[in-house]
């Protein structure tokens, strides 16, 4: 899965969680722009993990601000899985 495809899916998941008509893109910050409260971030991340069938550890998440960053992290995890 490419970075762009991951971003698309991440945005779909985000839209289903926050009932808003914002235009999200890879620059969208998860806390702030996306309007997620901290509890929702956890919910969102759990959904993302389930959707991609992965687990993301806290360390890796500490570098994540935007949807694009999250896609990058998922890409790395997937590469690690297939290698």
């Amino acid at each position, binding site marked *: 899965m490419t970075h762009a495809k991951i971003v698309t899916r991440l945005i779909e998941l985000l839209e289903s969680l926050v009932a808003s008509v914002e235009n999200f893109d890879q620059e969208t910050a998860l806390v702030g722009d996306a309007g997620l*409260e*901290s*509890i*929702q971030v*956890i*919910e969102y*991340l*759990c959904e993302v*993990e*389930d959707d991609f*069938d*992965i*687990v*993301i*550890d*806290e*360390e890796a998440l500490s570098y994540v601000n935007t949807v694009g960053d999250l896609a990058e992290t998922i890409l790395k995890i997937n590469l690690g899985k297939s290698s």
Partner: protein
Amino acid sequence: MSLFEKFSQARALEQALMEMPINPTGTIISEVVSASEAIIGGQLKIMAGTNNYLGLTFDADCVAAGQQALLEAGTGTTGSRMANGTYQQHLDLEIEIAEFFDLSHGMVFSTGYSANIGMLTALLNTEDSVLIDSEGHASLFDGCRMSGAKIYRFKHNDPEGLRKRLSRLGEAGKDALIVVEGLYSVRGDCAPLKEYVDVKNEFGSYLMVDEAHSLGLYGENGRGLAEDQGVSDEVDFVVGTFSKSLGSIGGFCVSNHPELSLIRYASRPYIFTASPSPSVIATTRQALKKIKNCPELRQIVWSNAQLLHSGLSKLGFQIGADVSPVIGIPFEDREVALTYWQDLFNKGVYTNLILPPAAPDGGSLIRCSVTAAHSKEQIRVILDAFDAIKNG
């Protein structure tokens, strides 16, 4: 950059709190009247926001035990458990707390916070994986982080979410440590420990349960939620505190794993801090006896819990289904929560105000707790205060 620049947010928060008529994080108790009442701001308040669940802080036997220890062993140990700070009484308490849980080994720490940090940093290193309930106490998260282990959160009280994550971890899931609580301290909801045990057994991982708030309240012998759910034998590590039901201060871990004795050599919060004072050990031991010998205390706190829970439900507050001595009342709007808190305070009822980001669901909460020391009349006053504010 100045060292203090990073405090700009804290400064803004302090400023906002100072501007309030009463600062909810800065209430000063000028006099403790009893286990359920205190003087704050010159007025008598019913304390409906403590962790004194069994109301033992003024128990005559506990106070006498503390006084006697002060006279016999002095005010403090002035040393760590690994140096001059291990008195016979510390060892006696370790044996008694293990016996109380019907487990083989016990270890006492200076606080519950340091017990959690001390256990987690000793048990885990960078090779390990730990899976933790997303609403776990700060001390549990801090311990996991300080250990360097890989940390995976799962949704609060979600054994299925835990199962999925363990399965995705593959081999790493086998030796992973699962960390949950018993009774959760803010909303007063209970962990599905039986389901967690099933998951743990499926993968062969380890389970740590923090019974800080459930000790003395749940189970036939007051051992906590694991006893209540019939899974005491399946929990690898029970951690907890002496600062709630036992009305004292200190922390502990009990376990059937003989390796607990090795933790003493590896746990920095155990080695590099002074051991609990003799009077603290003495009151804790006495309070433990009370849990064993006075099951009626549990009956009183539960009947008070029932009374408050049904009263608040009848008033239409959106509270959790689990009846427990802790009730978290959620408010979507922080200002409404704040006003409620202040109005309750003005009506003579002290509760805990929990604002974001401390509240588990990102909203605001008023945390109410009852104890065995509350009279039915006091519970009535608490409910009347809620009623007057809501319907007044």
